[in-house]
């Protein structure tokens, strides 16, 4: 009942405070593209189908856990309810293998995110959103997914540097996210944790359209080099995470991105992996049906 009341409150807020927001993560000249490991601050009608990643987790130094290799094939569907309020549904199929044992595979738990685009400043290419992600425990395969869920309130932001005086730095932008995950368990081995993510991106489309037209061929003019940082920490150990440098190619109605997954530090205890994503902008593909807000 309490959750329903919160959802209704979000809906009312969205209807009361409509801004000049648009799909595609637009704030003035700036478009914040969907990034692969850090959720962008916009609310949009989009589909990531699929996102694929592969990474090897090294054996625990004390020998308590063997090394594993994880492949993840994920789907994310983001749907606007109103112009500024949206939901996102994530589902991931995992394959986990370890030396000397057979591969296990199955669905991970389902995640649902409610996100509200709270403020957009077109002149300063800034936007911020708030959201909450709910992992529904025991919705995945028994051998893969945890039996308990979690709730993560989140704060998102995006800032384009288009107001810098040095023209070739104006295509730069940063986005970020801060969240705190509360698990639905009293298990002594599971601790609530902070999640931090941020990206630094250099938009060549911005360079071409707003700074200087270098006459670049389309294959280069549509690229956004990006580096993403994802860190998780709790009070009982060092932070762990990934650094993901890569590139996004954004066309009118779709985007392809590929990045390396580099361990954030020694404590992350992983090898270099890879993540790739094919992304569809549903508001461009179906502008009059599933690509527009419900209300």
């Amino acid at each position: 009942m309490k959750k329903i009341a919160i959802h209704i409150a979000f809906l009312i807020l969205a209807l009361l405070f409509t801004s000049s927001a648009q799909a595609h993560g637009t704030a003035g000249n700036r478009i914040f593209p969907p990034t692969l490991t850090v959720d962008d601050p916009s609310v949009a009608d989009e589909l990531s189908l699929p996102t694929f990643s592969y990474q090897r987790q090294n054996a625990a130094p004390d020998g308590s856990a063997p090394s594993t290799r994880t492949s993840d094939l994920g789907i994310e569907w983001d749907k606007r309810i109103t112009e500024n309020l949206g939901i996102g549904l994530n589902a991931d199929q995992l394959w986990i293998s370890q030396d000397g044992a057979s591969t296990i595979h199955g669905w991970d738990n389902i995640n649902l995110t409610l996100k509200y685009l709270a403020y957009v400043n077109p002149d300063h290419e800034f936007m911020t959103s708030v959201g909450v992600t709910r992992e529904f425990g025991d919705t995945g395969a028994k051998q893969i997914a945890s039996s308990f869920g979690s709730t993560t309130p989140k704060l998102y932001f995006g800032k384009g540097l288009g107001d810098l005086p040095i023209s070739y730095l104006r295509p730069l932008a940063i986005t970020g996210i801060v969240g705190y995950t509360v698990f639905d368990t009293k298990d002594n081995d599971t601790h609530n944790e902070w999640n931090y993510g941020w990206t630094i991106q250099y938009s060549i489309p911005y360079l071409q359209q707003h700074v200087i037209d270098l006459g670049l061929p389309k294959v280069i003019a549509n690229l956004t080099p990006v580096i993403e940082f994802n860190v998780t920490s709790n009070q009982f150990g060092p932070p762990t995470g990934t650094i993901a440098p890569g590139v996004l190619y954004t066309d009118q109605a779709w985007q392809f991105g590929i990045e390396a997954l580099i361990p954030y530090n020694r404590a992350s205890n992983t090898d270099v992996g890879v993540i790739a994503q094919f992304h569809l902008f549903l508001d461009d593909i179906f502008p009059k049906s599933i690509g527009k807000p419900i209300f």
Partner: protein
Amino acid sequence: MRKALVMASFLFFGALPVGKVLAHAFLSSAVPAVGSTVTVGPKELRLQFSEAVEIKFSSVKIITEGGKEIGPVRITLNPSDPQRLIVSLPEPLTRGMYIVKWRVVSVDTHKTQGDYRFTVRQ
């Protein structure tokens, strides 16, 4: 579950439009070019967009470095290319730096806006 996913994927991609999608209109190129310096003051600007635009809901402003708006300007759509806006000026631009602020609505009603600069150095 896997069969359902495969079927859903087929259904989704089968429903994708076969022709060109109706997307946001972004600036593809301009004359004078974005960030360029020209030696002859233009009497007309041309803005090429990535999608066809609705002339009724589109506007272009040309502003001097000092903040003065040049005008009145006349905006027309190239009859043979609905993705190209032509901005006719009352007289050729004189020496100086200019900011072009555009705001357009594509034919599928997506709104986009942006700006860029160019310089006239006679």
